[in-house]
Protein backbone atom coordinates (compact mmCIF):
# COMPACT_ATOMS: atom_id res chain seq x y z
CA UNK A 1 0.00 0.00 0.00
CA UNK A 2 1.32 3.40 -0.94
CA UNK A 3 1.24 6.09 1.72
CA UNK A 4 2.30 9.73 1.86
CA UNK A 5 5.89 10.70 2.59
CA UNK A 6 5.71 12.45 5.95
CA UNK A 7 7.90 13.92 8.64
CA UNK A 8 8.11 10.56 10.35
CA UNK A 9 9.77 9.12 7.24
CA UNK A 10 12.34 11.86 7.36
CA UNK A 11 13.02 10.97 10.99
CA UNK A 12 13.39 7.31 10.05
CA UNK A 13 15.96 8.27 7.46
CA UNK A 14 17.85 10.35 10.00
CA UNK A 15 17.72 7.48 12.45
CA UNK A 16 19.09 5.11 9.80
CA UNK A 17 21.91 7.57 9.13
CA UNK A 18 23.21 6.68 12.61
CA UNK A 19 23.99 3.23 11.26
CA UNK A 20 25.82 4.75 8.33
CA UNK A 21 27.91 6.69 10.84
CA UNK A 22 28.38 3.62 13.02
CA UNK A 23 29.44 1.41 10.13
CA UNK A 24 31.79 4.14 8.87
CA UNK A 25 33.30 4.43 12.34
CA UNK A 26 33.81 0.71 12.75
CA UNK A 27 35.20 0.42 9.22
CA UNK A 28 37.57 3.30 9.82
CA UNK A 29 38.81 1.94 13.15
CA UNK A 30 39.18 -1.62 11.88
CA UNK A 31 40.67 -0.40 8.62
CA UNK A 32 42.97 1.91 10.56
CA UNK A 33 44.40 -0.96 12.58
CA UNK A 34 44.85 -3.14 9.49
CA UNK A 35 46.19 -0.16 7.53
CA UNK A 36 48.76 0.69 10.18
CA UNK A 37 49.99 -2.87 10.19
CA UNK A 38 50.12 -2.95 6.38
CA UNK A 39 51.96 0.39 6.18
CA UNK A 40 54.55 -0.75 8.72
CA UNK A 41 54.95 -4.10 6.99
CA UNK A 42 55.68 -2.30 3.76
CA UNK A 43 58.59 -0.29 5.16
CA UNK A 44 60.30 -3.07 7.11
CA UNK A 45 63.70 -4.23 5.88
CA UNK A 46 62.31 -7.78 5.59
CA UNK A 47 61.40 -8.40 1.95
CA UNK A 48 58.91 -11.30 2.43
CA UNK A 49 56.93 -9.20 4.92
CA UNK A 50 56.81 -6.35 2.41
CA UNK A 51 55.63 -8.70 -0.34
CA UNK A 52 52.87 -10.09 1.84
CA UNK A 53 51.53 -6.61 2.55
CA UNK A 54 51.83 -5.63 -1.11
CA UNK A 55 49.89 -8.69 -2.25
CA UNK A 56 47.13 -7.85 0.23
CA UNK A 57 46.86 -4.26 -0.95
CA UNK A 58 46.90 -5.24 -4.63
CA UNK A 59 44.29 -7.97 -4.12
CA UNK A 60 41.85 -5.71 -2.29
CA UNK A 61 42.37 -2.68 -4.50
CA UNK A 62 41.84 -4.81 -7.59
CA UNK A 63 38.52 -6.29 -6.49
CA UNK A 64 35.10 -4.65 -5.97
CA UNK A 65 34.00 -3.92 -2.43
CA UNK A 66 30.60 -5.40 -3.24
CA UNK A 67 32.28 -8.73 -3.97
CA UNK A 68 33.85 -8.71 -0.51
CA UNK A 69 30.48 -7.95 1.08
CA UNK A 70 28.85 -10.87 -0.74
CA UNK A 71 31.80 -13.10 0.02
CA UNK A 72 31.42 -12.57 3.76
CA UNK A 73 27.65 -12.49 3.89
CA UNK A 74 26.80 -15.34 1.55
CA UNK A 75 30.12 -17.15 1.43
CA UNK A 76 30.92 -17.70 5.09
CA UNK A 77 27.66 -19.53 5.91
CA UNK A 78 28.68 -22.07 3.25
CA UNK A 79 31.65 -23.04 5.39
CA UNK A 80 29.48 -23.18 8.49
CA UNK A 81 30.06 -19.69 9.87
CA UNK A 82 26.84 -17.84 10.55
CA UNK A 83 27.26 -14.11 10.12
CA UNK A 84 24.77 -11.31 10.51
CA UNK A 85 24.90 -8.32 8.14
CA UNK A 86 26.68 -6.24 10.78
CA UNK A 87 29.64 -8.58 11.14
CA UNK A 88 29.84 -9.27 7.42
CA UNK A 89 29.75 -5.55 6.59
CA UNK A 90 32.19 -4.55 9.33
CA UNK A 91 34.69 -7.22 8.27
CA UNK A 92 34.44 -6.47 4.57
CA UNK A 93 34.81 -2.73 5.16
CA UNK A 94 37.74 -3.16 7.51
CA UNK A 95 39.53 -5.26 4.90
CA UNK A 96 38.72 -2.73 2.21
CA UNK A 97 39.69 0.33 4.27
CA UNK A 98 42.81 -1.43 5.57
CA UNK A 99 44.18 -1.84 2.06
CA UNK A 100 43.56 1.76 1.05
CA UNK A 101 44.67 3.34 4.32
CA UNK A 102 47.71 1.06 4.35
CA UNK A 103 48.63 2.33 0.90
CA UNK A 104 48.04 5.98 1.81
CA UNK A 105 50.12 5.66 4.97
CA UNK A 106 52.88 3.72 3.23
CA UNK A 107 53.09 6.61 0.78
CA UNK A 108 53.37 9.07 3.66
CA UNK A 109 56.14 7.04 5.29
CA UNK A 110 57.94 6.74 1.95
CA UNK A 111 57.72 10.50 1.47
CA UNK A 112 60.10 11.04 4.38
CA UNK A 113 63.62 11.20 2.94
CA UNK A 114 65.94 8.24 3.51
CA UNK A 115 68.39 10.64 5.09
CA UNK A 116 66.04 11.09 8.06
CA UNK A 117 66.23 7.35 8.75
CA UNK A 118 70.00 7.49 8.33
CA UNK A 119 70.35 10.41 10.72
CA UNK A 120 68.42 8.42 13.32
CA UNK A 121 70.38 5.24 12.71
CA UNK A 122 73.66 7.16 12.97
CA UNK A 123 72.67 8.31 16.45
CA UNK A 124 72.17 4.70 17.54
CA UNK A 125 68.36 4.63 17.39
CA UNK A 126 66.73 1.27 16.64
CA UNK A 127 64.48 0.80 13.60
CA UNK A 128 61.35 1.13 15.74
CA UNK A 129 62.66 4.20 17.55
CA UNK A 130 63.52 5.84 14.23
CA UNK A 131 59.98 5.10 13.09
CA UNK A 132 58.37 6.30 16.30
CA UNK A 133 60.31 9.48 16.99
CA UNK A 134 61.48 10.62 13.57
CA UNK A 135 59.49 9.16 10.70
CA UNK A 136 55.93 8.78 12.01
CA UNK A 137 55.52 12.32 13.41
CA UNK A 138 56.51 13.73 10.03
CA UNK A 139 54.50 11.18 8.04
CA UNK A 140 51.30 11.86 10.01
CA UNK A 141 51.27 15.45 8.79
CA UNK A 142 51.51 14.28 5.21
CA UNK A 143 48.91 11.55 5.70
CA UNK A 144 46.09 13.52 7.33
CA UNK A 145 44.54 15.21 4.26
CA UNK A 146 44.37 12.04 2.10
CA UNK A 147 43.17 10.04 5.11
CA UNK A 148 40.25 12.41 5.68
CA UNK A 149 39.60 12.32 1.95
CA UNK A 150 39.40 8.53 2.09
CA UNK A 151 37.07 8.71 5.09
CA UNK A 152 34.63 10.65 2.92
CA UNK A 153 34.78 7.90 0.27
CA UNK A 154 34.27 5.33 2.99
CA UNK A 155 31.13 7.01 4.32
CA UNK A 156 29.59 7.08 0.87
CA UNK A 157 30.65 3.51 0.15
CA UNK A 158 28.86 2.19 3.24
CA UNK A 159 25.74 2.51 1.08
CA UNK A 160 26.88 -0.73 -0.58
CA UNK A 161 26.08 -2.56 2.65
CA UNK A 162 22.43 -2.07 1.71
CA UNK A 163 22.98 -4.88 -0.76
CA UNK A 164 23.33 -7.44 2.02
CA UNK A 165 20.37 -6.10 3.95
CA UNK A 166 22.29 -3.94 6.39
CA UNK A 167 19.79 -1.21 7.23
CA UNK A 168 21.70 2.02 6.98
CA UNK A 169 20.71 5.22 5.24
CA UNK A 170 20.49 3.86 1.70
CA UNK A 171 18.66 0.66 2.67
CA UNK A 172 16.19 2.68 4.74
CA UNK A 173 15.67 4.95 1.74
CA UNK A 174 14.85 1.93 -0.44
CA UNK A 175 12.35 0.76 2.15
CA UNK A 176 10.79 4.19 2.47
CA UNK A 177 10.59 4.57 -1.28
CA UNK A 178 8.95 1.20 -1.65
CA UNK A 179 6.06 2.27 0.58
CA UNK A 180 5.72 5.93 -0.43
CA UNK A 181 6.89 5.75 -4.03
CA UNK A 182 8.37 9.24 -3.86
CA UNK A 183 11.86 8.54 -5.22
CA UNK A 184 12.73 12.19 -5.91
CA UNK A 185 11.87 13.31 -2.39
CA UNK A 186 13.41 10.31 -0.69
CA UNK A 187 16.68 10.20 -2.56
CA UNK A 188 17.20 13.95 -2.61
CA UNK A 189 16.84 13.89 1.18
CA UNK A 190 19.20 10.92 1.39
CA UNK A 191 21.75 12.69 -0.80
CA UNK A 192 21.44 15.77 1.39
CA UNK A 193 22.07 13.72 4.54
CA UNK A 194 25.19 12.14 3.00
CA UNK A 195 26.31 15.57 1.93
CA UNK A 196 25.79 16.95 5.43
CA UNK A 197 28.08 14.22 6.77
CA UNK A 198 30.77 14.51 4.11
CA UNK A 199 30.95 18.22 3.45
CA UNK A 200 32.40 19.20 6.85
CA UNK A 201 35.02 16.49 6.39
CA UNK A 202 36.10 17.66 2.95
CA UNK A 203 36.30 21.20 4.29
CA UNK A 204 38.36 19.99 7.21
CA UNK A 205 40.62 18.06 4.87
CA UNK A 206 41.12 21.16 2.76
CA UNK A 207 41.91 23.23 5.82
CA UNK A 208 44.45 20.66 7.00
CA UNK A 209 46.05 20.59 3.59
CA UNK A 210 46.50 24.35 3.61
CA UNK A 211 47.86 24.32 7.11
CA UNK A 212 50.31 21.63 6.11
CA UNK A 213 52.10 24.06 3.84
CA UNK A 214 52.92 26.43 6.67
CA UNK A 215 53.31 23.89 9.48
CA UNK A 216 56.67 22.32 10.01
Amino acid at each position, binding site marked *: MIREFGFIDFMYLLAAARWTVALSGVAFLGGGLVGLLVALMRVTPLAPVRWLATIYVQAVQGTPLLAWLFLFYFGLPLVGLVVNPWIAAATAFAIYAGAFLGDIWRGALAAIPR*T*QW*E*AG*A*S*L*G*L*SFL*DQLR*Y*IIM*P*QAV*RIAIPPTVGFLVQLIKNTSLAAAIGFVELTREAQITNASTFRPMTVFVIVAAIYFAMCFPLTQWSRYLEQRLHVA*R
Partner: protein
Amino acid sequence: MSLVELSHVVKRFGTNTVLDDVSMTVAPGEIIAVIGRSGSGKSTMLRCINGLEPIQDGRILFDGAVVNDPQTDLRALRQRVGIVFQSYNLFPHLSVEKNITLAPRVVKNMSESEARELAREVLRKVGLEEKIGAYPDQLSGGQQQRVAIARSLAMRPQLMLFDEITSALDPELTGEVLKVLEAMAGDGMTMLLVTHEIGFAKRVASRVVFMHQGRIWEEGTAAETLSAPRTQELETFLSAVLH
Protein backbone atom coordinates in the same frame (compact mmCIF):
# COMPACT_ATOMS: atom_id res chain seq x y z
CA MET B 1 96.69 1.16 18.83
CA SER B 2 94.62 2.60 16.05
CA LEU B 3 91.01 3.64 16.60
CA VAL B 4 89.93 2.78 13.07
CA GLU B 5 91.53 0.30 10.74
CA LEU B 6 90.44 -0.43 7.20
CA SER B 7 92.11 -3.35 5.52
CA HIS B 8 91.57 -4.20 1.86
CA VAL B 9 88.03 -2.83 1.88
CA VAL B 10 86.03 -3.39 -1.29
CA LYS B 11 82.65 -1.76 -1.80
CA ARG B 12 80.55 -2.26 -4.90
CA PHE B 13 77.23 -0.79 -5.99
CA GLY B 14 76.10 -3.45 -8.45
CA THR B 15 78.98 -3.88 -10.88
CA ASN B 16 80.42 -0.49 -10.02
CA THR B 17 83.39 -0.74 -7.67
CA VAL B 18 83.36 2.32 -5.44
CA LEU B 19 86.06 1.32 -2.98
CA ASP B 20 88.83 -0.77 -4.45
CA ASP B 21 91.16 -2.37 -1.90
CA VAL B 22 91.24 0.55 0.53
CA SER B 23 93.48 0.26 3.59
CA MET B 24 94.16 2.95 6.15
CA THR B 25 94.37 3.53 9.88
CA VAL B 26 93.26 6.36 12.13
CA ALA B 27 95.03 6.84 15.45
CA PRO B 28 93.23 8.43 18.42
CA GLY B 29 93.44 12.22 18.21
CA GLU B 30 94.27 12.24 14.53
CA ILE B 31 92.55 14.62 12.15
CA ILE B 32 92.45 13.25 8.67
CA ALA B 33 91.24 15.18 5.66
CA VAL B 34 89.98 13.00 2.84
CA ILE B 35 90.09 14.80 -0.49
CA GLY B 36 89.37 13.81 -4.07
CA ARG B 37 87.01 14.37 -6.97
CA SER B 38 83.34 13.57 -6.55
CA GLY B 39 82.76 9.88 -7.21
CA SER B 40 86.20 8.93 -5.92
CA GLY B 41 84.66 7.02 -3.00
CA LYS B 42 85.39 9.45 -0.14
CA SER B 43 81.86 9.71 1.19
CA THR B 44 81.24 6.01 0.74
CA MET B 45 84.31 5.25 2.83
CA LEU B 46 82.94 7.36 5.70
CA ARG B 47 79.55 5.68 5.44
CA CYS B 48 81.16 2.26 5.58
CA ILE B 49 83.01 3.13 8.76
CA ASN B 50 79.81 3.56 10.77
CA GLY B 51 78.08 0.70 8.99
CA LEU B 52 75.60 2.73 6.95
CA GLU B 53 76.89 0.90 3.88
CA PRO B 54 77.79 -2.79 3.88
CA ILE B 55 81.11 -3.77 2.31
CA GLN B 56 81.76 -6.69 -0.02
CA ASP B 57 85.28 -7.58 0.98
CA GLY B 58 87.96 -6.67 3.48
CA ARG B 59 87.56 -5.64 7.09
CA ILE B 60 86.81 -2.48 9.04
CA LEU B 61 87.79 -2.30 12.69
CA PHE B 62 86.60 0.33 15.12
CA ASP B 63 88.22 0.21 18.54
CA GLY B 64 88.85 -3.50 18.05
CA ALA B 65 85.31 -4.39 16.91
CA VAL B 66 84.70 -5.59 13.35
CA VAL B 67 82.16 -3.16 11.88
CA ASN B 68 81.27 -5.41 8.94
CA ASP B 69 80.65 -8.48 11.10
CA PRO B 70 76.89 -9.19 11.20
CA GLN B 71 77.31 -10.10 14.88
CA THR B 72 78.51 -6.61 15.76
CA ASP B 73 75.99 -4.41 17.54
CA LEU B 74 75.88 -1.51 15.07
CA ARG B 75 73.66 0.55 17.35
CA ALA B 76 76.21 0.43 20.15
CA LEU B 77 78.97 1.27 17.68
CA ARG B 78 77.11 4.22 16.21
CA GLN B 79 76.74 5.77 19.63
CA ARG B 80 80.51 6.08 19.66
CA VAL B 81 80.92 7.24 16.07
CA GLY B 82 79.28 10.55 15.19
CA ILE B 83 78.57 11.49 11.60
CA VAL B 84 77.56 14.85 10.17
CA PHE B 85 76.10 14.98 6.67
CA GLN B 86 76.30 17.48 3.86
CA SER B 87 72.56 18.13 4.03
CA TYR B 88 72.49 18.48 7.87
CA ASN B 89 69.60 16.00 8.20
CA LEU B 90 68.15 17.70 11.25
CA PHE B 91 64.71 16.50 12.29
CA PRO B 92 62.42 19.27 10.96
CA HIS B 93 59.55 18.53 13.36
CA LEU B 94 61.71 18.88 16.46
CA SER B 95 63.19 21.95 18.12
CA VAL B 96 66.95 22.34 18.33
CA GLU B 97 66.82 21.09 21.91
CA LYS B 98 64.80 17.98 20.98
CA ASN B 99 67.00 17.30 17.96
CA ILE B 100 69.93 17.09 20.34
CA THR B 101 68.27 15.34 23.25
CA LEU B 102 66.34 12.69 21.29
CA ALA B 103 69.13 10.12 21.10
CA PRO B 104 70.50 10.69 24.64
CA ARG B 105 66.95 10.36 25.99
CA VAL B 106 65.90 7.34 23.93
CA VAL B 107 69.17 5.47 23.54
CA LYS B 108 70.88 6.36 26.80
CA ASN B 109 67.77 6.82 28.97
CA MET B 110 68.97 10.20 30.13
CA SER B 111 66.58 12.25 32.29
CA GLU B 112 64.93 15.28 30.71
CA SER B 113 66.75 17.82 32.86
CA GLU B 114 70.09 16.12 32.37
CA ALA B 115 69.51 16.00 28.62
CA ARG B 116 68.59 19.68 28.51
CA GLU B 117 71.78 20.55 30.35
CA LEU B 118 73.70 18.45 27.83
CA ALA B 119 71.96 20.25 24.95
CA ARG B 120 73.03 23.59 26.40
CA GLU B 121 76.59 22.38 26.81
CA VAL B 122 77.00 21.13 23.24
CA LEU B 123 75.21 24.18 21.83
CA ARG B 124 77.69 26.37 23.70
CA LYS B 125 80.46 24.50 21.93
CA VAL B 126 79.04 25.42 18.55
CA GLY B 127 78.10 28.93 19.68
CA LEU B 128 74.33 28.56 19.40
CA GLU B 129 73.07 28.34 22.96
CA GLU B 130 70.46 31.04 22.32
CA LYS B 131 68.88 28.93 19.55
CA ILE B 132 67.89 26.07 21.85
CA GLY B 133 64.17 26.71 21.34
CA ALA B 134 64.31 27.36 17.58
CA TYR B 135 63.18 24.98 14.84
CA PRO B 136 65.55 23.95 12.04
CA ASP B 137 63.70 25.97 9.38
CA GLN B 138 64.26 29.13 11.42
CA LEU B 139 68.03 28.72 11.17
CA SER B 140 70.52 29.51 8.42
CA GLY B 141 72.35 26.66 6.73
CA GLY B 142 75.48 27.31 8.75
CA GLN B 143 73.50 27.33 11.99
CA GLN B 144 71.70 24.13 11.05
CA GLN B 145 75.00 22.45 10.35
CA ARG B 146 76.36 23.58 13.71
CA VAL B 147 73.27 22.13 15.41
CA ALA B 148 73.89 18.87 13.54
CA ILE B 149 77.44 18.86 14.92
CA ALA B 150 76.12 19.57 18.41
CA ARG B 151 73.62 16.71 18.03
CA SER B 152 76.46 14.32 17.27
CA LEU B 153 78.62 15.66 20.08
CA ALA B 154 75.82 15.02 22.57
CA MET B 155 76.45 11.29 22.19
CA ARG B 156 80.04 11.91 23.32
CA PRO B 157 81.55 10.05 20.38
CA GLN B 158 85.14 8.85 20.21
CA LEU B 159 85.27 9.52 16.50
CA MET B 160 83.58 12.12 14.34
CA LEU B 161 82.97 11.66 10.63
CA PHE B 162 82.22 14.74 8.54
CA ASP B 163 80.83 14.21 5.07
CA GLU B 164 81.41 17.39 3.03
CA ILE B 165 79.65 19.36 5.70
CA THR B 166 80.33 22.77 4.17
CA SER B 167 79.56 21.85 0.56
CA ALA B 168 75.91 22.90 0.70
CA LEU B 169 76.70 26.21 2.40
CA ASP B 170 77.16 29.67 0.96
CA PRO B 171 80.81 30.70 1.10
CA GLU B 172 80.17 33.27 3.83
CA LEU B 173 78.66 30.56 6.04
CA THR B 174 81.41 27.96 5.72
CA GLY B 175 83.71 29.95 8.00
CA GLU B 176 81.49 29.61 11.07
CA VAL B 177 81.28 25.84 10.60
CA LEU B 178 85.01 25.42 10.02
CA LYS B 179 85.66 27.42 13.17
CA VAL B 180 83.64 24.89 15.15
CA LEU B 181 85.67 22.07 13.61
CA GLU B 182 88.89 23.81 14.54
CA ALA B 183 87.74 24.16 18.12
CA MET B 184 86.90 20.44 18.21
CA ALA B 185 90.32 19.66 16.80
CA GLY B 186 91.78 21.71 19.62
CA ASP B 187 89.82 19.59 22.11
CA GLY B 188 91.58 16.49 20.79
CA MET B 189 88.64 14.90 18.98
CA THR B 190 89.53 12.22 16.45
CA MET B 191 88.11 13.36 13.15
CA LEU B 192 87.83 12.04 9.64
CA LEU B 193 86.59 14.67 7.27
CA VAL B 194 85.74 14.61 3.63
CA THR B 195 86.27 18.14 2.43
CA HIS B 196 86.96 20.42 -0.49
CA GLU B 197 88.40 23.10 1.80
CA ILE B 198 92.06 22.62 0.98
CA GLY B 199 93.19 25.63 3.01
CA PHE B 200 91.37 24.29 6.05
CA ALA B 201 92.84 20.82 5.53
CA LYS B 202 96.32 22.29 5.40
CA ARG B 203 95.76 24.27 8.59
CA VAL B 204 93.97 21.71 10.75
CA ALA B 205 94.52 18.18 9.43
CA SER B 206 97.39 16.08 10.67
CA ARG B 207 97.16 13.87 7.63
CA VAL B 208 95.70 14.08 4.16
CA VAL B 209 94.32 11.17 2.17
CA PHE B 210 93.77 11.69 -1.55
CA MET B 211 91.31 9.29 -3.13
CA HIS B 212 91.06 8.60 -6.82
CA GLN B 213 88.96 6.00 -8.62
CA GLY B 214 88.05 4.24 -5.38
CA ARG B 215 91.63 3.90 -4.21
CA ILE B 216 93.82 5.74 -1.80
CA TRP B 217 96.07 7.35 -4.36
CA GLU B 218 98.30 9.31 -2.08
CA GLU B 219 98.55 10.03 1.61
CA GLY B 220 100.89 11.76 3.99
CA THR B 221 101.20 14.72 6.31
CA ALA B 222 98.97 17.60 5.29
CA ALA B 223 101.78 20.06 4.72
CA GLU B 224 103.84 17.74 2.52
CA THR B 225 101.08 16.12 0.54
CA LEU B 226 99.32 19.35 -0.32
CA SER B 227 102.35 21.43 -1.15
CA ALA B 228 104.33 18.75 -2.96
CA PRO B 229 102.02 16.21 -4.58
CA ARG B 230 103.80 13.09 -5.77
CA THR B 231 101.25 12.02 -8.36
CA GLN B 232 99.94 13.74 -11.45
CA GLU B 233 96.35 13.06 -10.34
CA LEU B 234 96.70 14.92 -7.06
CA GLU B 235 98.45 17.78 -8.76
CA THR B 236 95.64 18.06 -11.31
CA PHE B 237 93.04 17.84 -8.55
CA LEU B 238 94.70 20.50 -6.42
CA SER B 239 95.08 22.93 -9.26
CA ALA B 240 91.42 22.39 -10.18
CA VAL B 241 90.27 23.04 -6.62
CA LEU B 242 92.54 25.95 -5.90
CA HIS B 243 92.05 27.89 -9.11
